[in-house]
């Protein structure tokens, strides 16, 4: 597993920050306009430090993060991991792709007037939505399906689930999976702000502005990052003596067909039920839910209702937390990063809290893990929810590999 996040430089530091409730949120002074400064959850990451074997084009920040996280995941998977390249795929998620390069390139055109419209010859190949996957395929010589899924906030959860199915169905033997997004750019921040989805700055501590499931929640903070994993069959992993983190056991996907932004409990519930059933588990087996939990009023309400619907009386006994309070909403990378957090919770028995939950929304009433991490649990299975604009709901279930 590998991760570049606003709260960590790899998977383990990210998980440690999630447990310790270390926030990656800060005001972006350099993007302030009209006396208002946007909040961001930025990753401490320098694109120039990413080694590239066969550079196809200049790398956008999102692609560089993808490459860095994937290198970590491959190192973690072990040096002995030499799959058949023709039978290995890349299944990657991104909400928007290389928007940083796109904005910078086109800003020059729009500001320069029409006398000499001019961008770099590599602009297309740097900014195409599959740029990250294209670079990974070249760098790691992956010659099976190399696919980019763009499903807004559910992009990487969908990518991971579809890769699992492709392995199960015998189309491929192994896959690099995950997602990336780096959209802390003036245009994108402005667009999200116009939609009124973003959190307002906490007057006491800006780092505590993201407050999922709290009565005083105001939305989410836009984040950036990448999360990567290696999937293969259990038999292959055992045969090569790999470090196995978990079994990706279930994937459920369902669409709302109801509203472009407002979530629907019906669609979310169907996706959760499908994932649990796909894993061959019962709702009672799920011992931790990493919620989509963006911290919008309607989002938190609907997700809570969906969890109650699926889990019945058991709902109030399951720890449910949203780590978005700390790493922000990492969009296309969110599903991957939050699955990594969930898998590390499964492995360690430690459950990350929902941070900044001083004033819980009492109408919701689930166990949102306030007041710090919980340790020493024996978790049988964990679930990660990703619900997208457009109404696509993707749910992943992981359990101990045996």
């Amino acid at each position, binding site marked *: 597993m590998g991760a570049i996040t606003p709260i960590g430089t790899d998977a383990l530091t990210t998980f440690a920050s999630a447990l310790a409730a270390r926030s990656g949120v800060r005001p972006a002074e350099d993007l302030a306009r009209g006396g208002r400064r946007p909040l961001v959850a930025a990753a401490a990451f320098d694109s120039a430090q990413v080694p590239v074997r066969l550079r196809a*084009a200049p790398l956008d920040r999102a692609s560089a993060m993808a490459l860095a996280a994937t290198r970590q995941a491959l190192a973690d998977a072990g040096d002995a991991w030499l799959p058949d390249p023709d039978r290995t795929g890349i299944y990657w998620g991104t909400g928007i792709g290389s928007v940083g390069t796109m904005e910078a390139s086109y800003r020059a055109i729009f500001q320069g007037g029409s006398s000499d419209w001019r961008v*770099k*010859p*590599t602009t297309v*190949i740097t900014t195409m939505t599959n740029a990250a996957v294209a670079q990974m395929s070249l760098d790691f010589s992956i010659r099976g399906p190399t696919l980019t899924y763009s499903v807004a906030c559910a992009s990487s959860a969908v990518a991971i689930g579809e890769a699992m199915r492709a392995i199960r169905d015998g189309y491929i033997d192994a896959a690099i999976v995950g997602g990336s997004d780096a959209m802390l750019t003036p245009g994108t921040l402005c667009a999200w702000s116009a939609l009124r989805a973003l959190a307002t700055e906490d007057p006491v501590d800006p780092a505590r502005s993201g407050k999922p499931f709290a009565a005083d929640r105001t939305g989410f903070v836009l984040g950036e990052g990448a999360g990567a994993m290696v999937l293969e069959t259990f038999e292959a992993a055992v045969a090569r003596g790999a470090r196995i983190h978990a079994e990706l056991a279930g994937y459920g996907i369902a669409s709302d067909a109801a509203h472009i932004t407002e979530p629907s409990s019906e669609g979310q519930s169907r996706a959760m039920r499908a994932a649990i059933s796909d894993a061959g588990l019962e709702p009672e087996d799920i011992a931790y839910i990493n919620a989509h939990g963006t911290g919008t009023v309607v989002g938190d309400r609907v997700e809570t209702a969906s969890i109650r619907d699926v889990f019945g009386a058991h709902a109030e006994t399951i720890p449910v937390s949203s780590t978005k309070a700390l790493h922000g909403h990492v969009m296309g990378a969110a599903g991957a990063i939050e699955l990594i957090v969930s898998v590390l919770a499964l492995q360690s028995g430690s459950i990350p809290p929902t941070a900044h939950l001083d004033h819980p929304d009492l109408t919701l009433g689930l166990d949102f893990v306030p007041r710090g991490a919980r340790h020493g649990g024996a978790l049988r299975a964990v679930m990660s929810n990703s619900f997208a604009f457009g109404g696509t709901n993707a749910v992943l279930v992981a359990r101990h590999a045996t």
Partner: protein
Amino acid sequence: MEDTFTRVRALMAQELGVAPETIEPSTELAALGIDSLAALEFVFTLEEAFGVRFGEDADIRGGKVEDVVDIVERELARAKELRAAA
């Protein structure tokens, strides 16, 4: 000629990640591993650095480094003439 060559060589070396001394006026661009995409990128770099335009159909791939230097010098001279005429 010398000045233009030195600048072209420096830009080329930087773009390719090689030492400038490895590039001679007679070096074939193909020998430097410049493919169609790299050629486009390099023309763009030269245009920005010298403030000239190579023209839409300029294809430097088949030539040598000195041919690229010639194009730059020609376009610099043309730009100078245009300025004088204006």
